[in-house]
């Protein structure tokens, strides 16, 4: 697999680390135990196109949101995590 890092360009798999589904969002502080349980433990485990967290740790150290098909491994989109390259974001 090769991932096109939005910052570095196309790089080989060995430079990246996988975390998992990017869809679950960390619940707010007051969301309660059930919401956090769901966030931490339950997975859609998509057979098909899925949005995922990958870390370019062997490169620029950016966290990336990768859209990938788990049936074919085809990658259709890669974008930076919200806080990667955030210096460009208006303060």
């Amino acid at each position, binding site marked *: 697999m090769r991932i096109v890092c939005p910052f*570095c360009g196309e790089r080989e798999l060995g430079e990246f680390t996988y975390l998992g589904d990017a869809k679950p969002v960390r619940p707010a502080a007051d969301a309660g135990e059930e919401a956090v349980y769901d966030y931490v433990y339950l997975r859609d485990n998509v057979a098909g196109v899925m949005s995922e967290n990958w870390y370019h740790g062997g490169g620029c150290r950016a966290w990336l949101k990768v859209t990938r098909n788990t049936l074919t491994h085809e990658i259709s989109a890669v974008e*930076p995590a919200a806080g990667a390259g955030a*210096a460009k974001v208006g303060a």
Partner: protein
Amino acid sequence: MAEFSWDVRSPLDRVLAVGRYGAHGDAGVTLTEIRNFDLVQVMARRGKTAELAKAAKVRFGVAAPETPKAVGTADATLIWSGPDQFFILSKGRKHAMAALAPLRAGSASLSDQSHARVLIAVSGAKARAMLAKMSSIDLHPSVFAVGAAAATSMDHTSVTLWRGNDQADGQAVFNVLVFATFAESLWHTMLDSAAEYGVVVGHSEDLA
């Protein structure tokens, strides 16, 4: 009272043996360690890209690289190291951590990395063939031109790689910044990878 001497010792000091290594005949690869340099990592603060760019421009006369490039100036090289980040590589304390306060001024966070890395220049007719054993980056001249840079891994070890100016003989020069505590290990791998081409090993005290 004891006399303390604070000699600076490169992590390659014990293993770098100046001279020939590997196959005989014309050496295909030259490995040169550059011993003394100042290296500062500059990280733009949130929303401060433009300010930092301006500050860099004032100080260095060039824009800080926003893509994987190494930009040479009269007395420093600015090397992209990640989103919102770049290295300032220089010598003689002129752009060392202590001298960079103006750059900081609220627009950037700085971290001294002068001792955290070892700098090795790889050149020679077989430099690309040798690096192909360690690096997954395409170093073909049409892809990785002079000034190209990459935050990448070599043999599972994180490095910053950039192509400096060609030598007088037209040969490409690839610069590798590797973490100091991995340097000896990566050095051995470099020697192994280059051995079949013949290697000239050397070091220079300062950045050119």
